[in-house]
């Protein structure tokens, strides 16, 4: 039999538009759209993409529950056997939407779901427990590798065939343990691993330790009247012309900008360098991302002692975790040495 598959993609891959169209509400079209063509080829005649759901990334990410409900209703009419979403690569909102729709479909329709993302996509940590997410590169250059892996995995799930380990099948580890039998006893395997380690030979642990990178919350500000407030943003606000050339995505740097005497971020002086959301509104009034005007008012009213005379800004669009950590640590070091006592960080 030919299985019926519904494919979920965003407005960009549907050819509707970029950030200026990221607010579009979901629609469903019969047959394949965009990357669905390659997916259909990889599925051969074993499954047919009967319909494609298209939704704007910002619409989905800002209306998770509503969007999921709307899309599930649309999907029901096509009685799908499985849903495939993406690949979303390193696009954060697309990954969130793909994972979100997979989770909702799996829970409400009880059918197999597969997505695909770059491991640092925030959609991975949010949804890897709910669905299979094939590992991809960070850009659409990895499409040719991602599509066959997604097709193979969804066909396996549809046929009820056993799914192998993450490294065998190419999906991201889900934190699920399965029992299996080995020829060798655990003690022997442990000694084998230990001797391999001693000899500097490669070995694979059977139980990788989860990494919980959590930071304890700091004590609250008890004396707001004497606080110095620092402003940081991942929304890309910078002086007009972006003097430090902060990249529109995958930023390699942050900027430090003096706002001594600036009471309001006006559109003739400031803008956003961010390439991951529709910049229209931030360019019209940068205070919509970095609230300097309101903080100046409050400073004058004596709510706190001082707004720090520098703000820090980078672009959070596709920026790696390693870079973000480096920026955060350096910004904190500079703010502390300048006497900042509390921080407001805004993200788009």
């Amino acid at each position: 039999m030919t299985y019926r598959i519904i494919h979920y993609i965003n407005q960009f891959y549907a050819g509707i538009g970029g950030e200026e169209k990221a607010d579009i509400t979901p629609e469903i079209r019969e047959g394949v759209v965009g990357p669905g063509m390659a997916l259909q080829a990889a599925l051969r005649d074993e499954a047919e993409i009967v319909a494609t759901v298209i939704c704007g990334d910002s619409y989905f990410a800002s209306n998770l529950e509503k969007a999921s409900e709307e899309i599930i209703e649309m999907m029901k009419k096509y009685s799908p056997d499985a849903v495939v979403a993406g690949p979303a690569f390193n696009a954060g909102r697309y990954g969130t939407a793909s994972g979100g729709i997979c989770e909702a479909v799996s829970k409400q329709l009880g059918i197999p779901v597969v997505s695909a993302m770059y491991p640092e996509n925030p959609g991975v940590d949010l949804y890897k427990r709910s669905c299979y997410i094939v590992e991809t590169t960070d850009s659409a250059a990895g499409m040719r590798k991602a599509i066959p892996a997604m097709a193979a995995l969804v066909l396996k799930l549809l046929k009820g065939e056993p799914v192998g380990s993450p490294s065998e099948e190419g999906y991201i580890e889900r934190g699920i343990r399965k029992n299996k039998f080995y020829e060798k006893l655990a003690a022997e395997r442990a000694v084998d691993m230990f001797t391999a380690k001693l000899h500097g030979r490669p070995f694979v642990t059977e139980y990788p330790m989860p990494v919980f990178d959590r930071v304890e919350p700091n004590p609250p500000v008890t004396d707001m009247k004497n606080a110095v407030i620092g402003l940081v943003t991942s929304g890309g606000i910078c002086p007009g012309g972006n003097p430090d050339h902060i990249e529109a995505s995958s930023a390699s740097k942050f900027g430090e900008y003096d706002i001594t005497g600036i009471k309001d971020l006006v559109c003739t002086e400031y803008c956003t360098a961010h390439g991951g959301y529709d910049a229209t509104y931030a360019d019209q009034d940068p205070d919509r991302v970095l609230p300097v005007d309101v903080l100046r008012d409050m400073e004058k009213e004596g709510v706190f002692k001082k707004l720090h005379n520098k703000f820090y800004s980078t672009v959070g669009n596709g920026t790696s975790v390693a870079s973000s950590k480096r920026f955060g640590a350096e910004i904190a070091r500079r703010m502390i040495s300048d006497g900042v006592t509390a921080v407001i960080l805004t993200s788009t």
Partner: protein
Amino acid sequence: MVKEIERAGLPVVHVCTIVPISLTVGANRIVPAVAIPYPLGDPNRTPEEEKEIRRNLVEKALKALQTEVTEQTVFTD
């Protein structure tokens, strides 16, 4: 960045639109914002109303900074 600033010893509040991402990343004090392209504003309102919205969010952020928390907390009202 939020986490590294916290790790360095500064109390920090994350004002952001996609709260689930902030929770996954590990921010401790979170204030939900308006929308992705305008977290602290709303172009559909008058400039005065918009500034009022922004003022409310900043006040909420300052309140969050003055609140003792022991775990990740989303300040919704």
